[in-house]
């Protein structure tokens, strides 16, 4: 096996290629299905609504099948690690908090959520002291607050804290 840094692979290329090709095929199928519902033929006044998307869907499905076959045909030597366990952990350690962050935006507002998000990163991955964490995370949100609410006058989602401070 030719691993980049010798770590344990979480997924190999063949799995990744297959999954992505399958997702493409499914999306193409959805497009074909909905276009067929709307009609993809010709009427006297020209092509129906589903005409263009129908063929787009067909091309997606055909390409997906060819990519799927190409992925399955990968030789053993070429079937190297797609992502190593350590790398996947790092990526997930960013992706999961980001998803939580997006979930929080609607609930406690973008400024508080952002401050918490930056703080979590600095404390957890960067191992900074608390006062540095607080200074950067709160300062960052304050700067964005000034830029968007005062300078550009574009209201961003706000939550209970802003309501408490009467900034809504």
């Amino acid at each position, binding site marked *: 096996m030719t691993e980049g840094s010798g770590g344990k692979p979480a997924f190999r*290329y063949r799995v*990744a*290629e297959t999954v*992505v090709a399958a997702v*493409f095929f499914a*999306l*193409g199928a*959805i*497009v074909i299905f*909905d276009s067929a519902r*709307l009609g993809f033929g*010709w009427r006297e*006044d*020209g*092509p129906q*609504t*589903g005409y*263009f*998307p129908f063929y*787009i*869907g067909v*091309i*997606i499905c055909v*390409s*997906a099948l*060819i*990519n799927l076959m*190409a992925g399955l045909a990968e030789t053993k030597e070429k079937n190297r690690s*797609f*992502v190593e366990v350590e*790398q996947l952990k*790092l*990526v997930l350690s*960013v*992706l999961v908090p*980001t*998803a939580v*962050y*997006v979930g929080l*935006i*609607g609930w406690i507002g*973008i400024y508080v959520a*952002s401050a918490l*998000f*930056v703080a*979590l*990163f*600095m404390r957890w*991955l*960067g191992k*900074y002291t608390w006062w540095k964490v607080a200074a950067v995370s709160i300062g*960052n949100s304050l700067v*964005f607050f000034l830029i*968007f609410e005062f300078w*550009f*006058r*574009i*209201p*961003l*989602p706000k939550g209970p804290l802003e309501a408490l401070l009467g900034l809504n």
Partner: protein
Amino acid sequence: MDEIQSLLQGFVVVLTLKNIALMFTGIVLGVIIGVLPGLGGANGVAILLPLTFSMSQAPGGTTSAIILLSCIYWGALFGGAITSILFNIPGEPWSVATTFDGYPLAQKGRAGAALTAAFTSSFVGALVAVIVITFLSPIVAGFALEFGPPEFFAVYLLTFCAFVGMSKEPPFKTLATMMLGFALAAVGTDPVTGTLRLTFGSTHLLTGFDFLIAVIGLFGIGEILLTLEEGLAFKGAQAKMNIKVVLETWKELPKYWLTSIRSSAVGCFMGIVPGGATPASFMSYGVARRFSKDGDKFGTGIVEGVVAPETAAHAAGTAALLPMLTLGVPGSPTAAVLLGGLLIWGLQPGPLLFVEQKDFVWGLIASMYLGNIVGLIVVLTCVPLFAAILRVPFSVIAPIIMVICAIGAYTVHNSIFDVWMMLVFGVMGYVFKKLQYPLAPLVLAIVLGDRAESSFRQAMLVAQGDMSVFFSNALVGSLTGLALFLLFWPLMSMLWSKLRRGI
């Protein structure tokens, strides 16, 4: 000459205090965006685009808005070189080729020379491309005024087939992402009949997918996830820039005039046909290595190896605006975002722009000349400042960039659903990049999908469903023919190499 007259008129439009200030702001922001991982030309402009909504409402405001955004683009083009040379991290895909010789030069202690050479040749490349735009675009636009729907569809077809034929990614992966882009563009209201399609009853999907969200997710979040895999620390060389180094390097540069001319030509060509800056920089590096008398020293750290890719990348990045302005067909993802901006401000990109919006077009072209001069001055004087940004640890920079992306995605339509979509596109960008699914055709398809479909259907309506309309005259026939040739090029070259092996 009409062009010179129009250009001078453009300079009059640009040379106001407000526009010059915007130019500086744009360049500085652009360099910062180009230096930071996860923020690049395309998504940097996409994030800032919503902020220009209100700016564009004032009289002459659209010109100011495009100056700001295009200067961010030039800044990002300059900024990519800084990280490549000092940190061996290409801040932008088109500066990958700059690392080949730029980083070895920096390790030898000649970082200043490498940076000066990179910036100066960027400037030269851009200048050549702007001159090409100045004199070629009125001709192309005049030509395109005669275009009807079949011709426009043939141009779109050519653009997309060029991606299949010319990208180094597997052709069916290019085709798959491109068609996915068209499918995403089709979601929502049918542009011709107004029927809803592919929404499946979701109210969020009524307006379809916005390409700005896709750009921010694919290029921003995806890039950060990729960078994370490499670890969290950046190690870089120190840059000593002073007037002496700059002057010494400038004395050396005229030696490479032939490389500059070749690279500018490669860059302009690749920018106008939708190849983009990234392949242009690689191609130009390869060509320079083959033709240079120091060819075997390429890769060990020589100035010529920096000049070639940087000139081409900047020339291509600039020239990509020519088809965007004249035909409404962008040659690169960033040009696609700028085109989206034009649409949002209520301008119709295409040949009519040169007739109806003279101030806007020539103001933009004049600002390209000035913007690149301003850019050269800013980067030459402020390199240490910009390099310091990269010394901020990734665990601080990464979440802040994520927050910027989230705010950018939210401000497009003031919708949290868009922020979720941005995250989905981010994961998509990460996986696609690793599996060699190209992102540029996806973005271009989302931007152009509706327009391509409308022109196709209008052409079909006029022709009563007869496909031969796309071969009905010499112009549309040769465009369609060239498109089909490019589309089947990968297949032909595969058959050709099989045949040769057979013998």
